[in-house]
């Protein structure tokens, strides 16, 4: 079963993603901040990470993304950034950090499913 890690500080958004993906065949893991998210990623080695960009704590989503992509063995992990920032500048920052996809909040749950499936099948 494919593993999906949700790194998001808002509990309601984590719940939304969880419910969105509940009928799919995914093993779901959750983290509420960046540092915890990174250690979870290293611990569970997910196939895909849904990563909030603006989070409390020492690490924001971009830093977590970079750290995952540069961790040996995790370079193939797909990262989808979830962000409220949609400026071209912000997208560039996401690309620089190595993100595979960039979803702007508020996002459509159905679109999220499509995005995840597309990334998974490509892998």
């Amino acid at each position, binding site marked *: 079963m494919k593993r999906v890690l949700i790194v998001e500080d808002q509990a*309601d*958004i984590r719940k*939304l993603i969880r419910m*969105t993906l509940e009928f799919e065949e995914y093993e779901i893991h959750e983290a509420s901040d960046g540092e915890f998210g990174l250690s979870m990623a290293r611990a569970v080695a997910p196939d895909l990470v849904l990563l909030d960009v603006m989070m409390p704590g020492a690490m*924001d989503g971009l830093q977590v993304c970079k750290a995952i992509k540069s961790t040996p063995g995790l370079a193939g992990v797909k990262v989808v950034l979830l962000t*409220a920032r949609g400026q071209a500048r912000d997208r560039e920052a996401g690309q620089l950090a190595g993100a595979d996809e960039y979803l702007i909040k*508020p*996002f459509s*749950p159905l679109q999220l499913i499509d995005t995840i499936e597309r990334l998974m099948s490509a892998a």
Partner: protein
Amino acid sequence: MNAFTAPGLDALARAERGVGRVSLPADAHTQAIIDAVPDAIIGIDRAGCITLVNPAAISVFGNDPLKAGHAAMPLTDWLPELSLAGIAQTMEAGLPQAERGLSVARFEALARRHDGTEFTADVSLSRVDNSHGASYTCVVRDITEQLEAFALLTLYRRALDCTSNGVVISDLRLPERPVRYANLAFTRITGFGQHEALGRNLDFLAAADPAQPGLARLADSVVQGEPDTAVLRHCHKDGTPFLNEMSVAPIFSPDGDIDHSVSVLQDVTERERSRLALAERNARLNAVFDLSPDGFLVFDTGRRLVSSNRAFLAMTGWPAADEAAPMSLAEFDRRFARLCDPACPVRPLAEALRAADGATDTLTLLQPEHRVLARSVRGQADGQGETIVFLRDVTRETEVDRMKSEFLTTAAHELRTPMVSVFGFTELLLSRPVPEARRRDMLETIHRQSQRLINMVNDLLDLARIEARQGKDLKRGPCRLGDLVGQTVAPYAELPGPARLCVRMAHADAALHVDAEKTIRVLTNVISNAFKYSPAGGDIVLTTLDGRLRDGPAVGVRISDPGIGMSPAQCERVFERFYRADPSGNIPGTGLGMSLVKEITELHGGRVEVRSALGSGTEVTLWWPLASGVPGEPAVQGW
């Protein structure tokens, strides 16, 4: 001389019959005088021809008409106007002195030398009547020099009368030092006629203020032989005061004594008035420059820094300029560059001056502290004339701009986050069948997040409205403090989380005259901050206090949290619009909550105090004036 002349002339008259030198039987003494006088003596016969000359006549006219072998020469060769008819006419017009049969007339006449040159002569003509008829003798004196000297003297006088400066000569030999001469300009300046000044000491002009120090100083200087100048307060004849710049110089007699003084007067009232007006204007401009929060620099034509105001010194931390050694433009650029952020290179002033006039650019200083300055330069590209540099501190504007764009980013994030739930759960509910319990949970989430959105939009709109309306739309009424606090804290009672709210209400019955809804908003903002910034939990304590506001009784609500606190620098900016102590966005917020707290509380005549220490929590005290007057009536308050 006259005593000798008469007999001499008698002798001449007697000799008239013959032709020849004056060689008469008269005494040798008379002959000697006639030969020695510098005036020309000429005898004429009844035909008008010269019959007699003395050596002076030969010398004055340059020829000897009696020289042997020459025909008789008419007097008109020497004195063209004195034909026989002219002589007769002159004698009649003149004042004949019937004295021993002698008539004398004295007049000026044109004389002509043998070489043709002419001169003005003083002529004394005498007629002797005898048996042969009338014969004449004339004495001729060249008065050219005398006339010239007189003309020069008149010229001096006319010149003095034409100058615009008053000129007065005083006699220092008399104790009163009276005025001996005053020109026309003196009258024009003082209104006193020349005759009114003559014989008086010139200081009569200062009669209204005889103690002014300038008077004594000028008098002393002139006695010391020194010229001196003073501006004196004098009075015009009509009583109008005027400022008289008077220069006095001593006049030395040929043997070196100071016997007179010359004073030159000039009415400088207008000049002094303009000078004072200019000085006043300068003082005013200096004050403006000094008080101006903007920096001003003035470079002179030689491109040296001649003036810099206080604001500039404060901006740069430079000491006041040494006026004796003005800084060159190059040196200024070198020193200024040291203050600037190397990352934002500054165009040197020398270069900016060559560029278009009046252009404004922005400089970023790192020393003595971070500042952003807008620089405008006014001068001429060719470097002629003064150059003025104007520096405006735009640090704050730049900062506000930065905060605004930061706010927009933050606000976008804060507004989009609740929308994720609203939009996402709605889509899920629409796209798939959901069991009833789950459906209810999802709707509750949507509702809660919608409420969050509403609150945030309200904050933004309220702040904008308060700012625009300045409290005109407050709905004030009598309120019990206990009710306000009770309504505020109710939602926090069963809040899950590590922090807990403890309310210690001692002034529940305190009467306020406030807009209840907005006051609850204020309390809510402060309490929600206390929760937000106490992530580690602990007791958030609400207490009430007695106090005073502007000499009136007041009640305070103090909310203390054990949270993360703020540094003094953060604390200072806590009420700033859009300011967030934690800009990382880790703690949600719009940066508007405390701005609202302050705006609303102050519109109610209240006050907000914040004390905080990094790591040990924050204490916010809200003060409101107690409502006075009849319960239920609007309180009579200054606000």
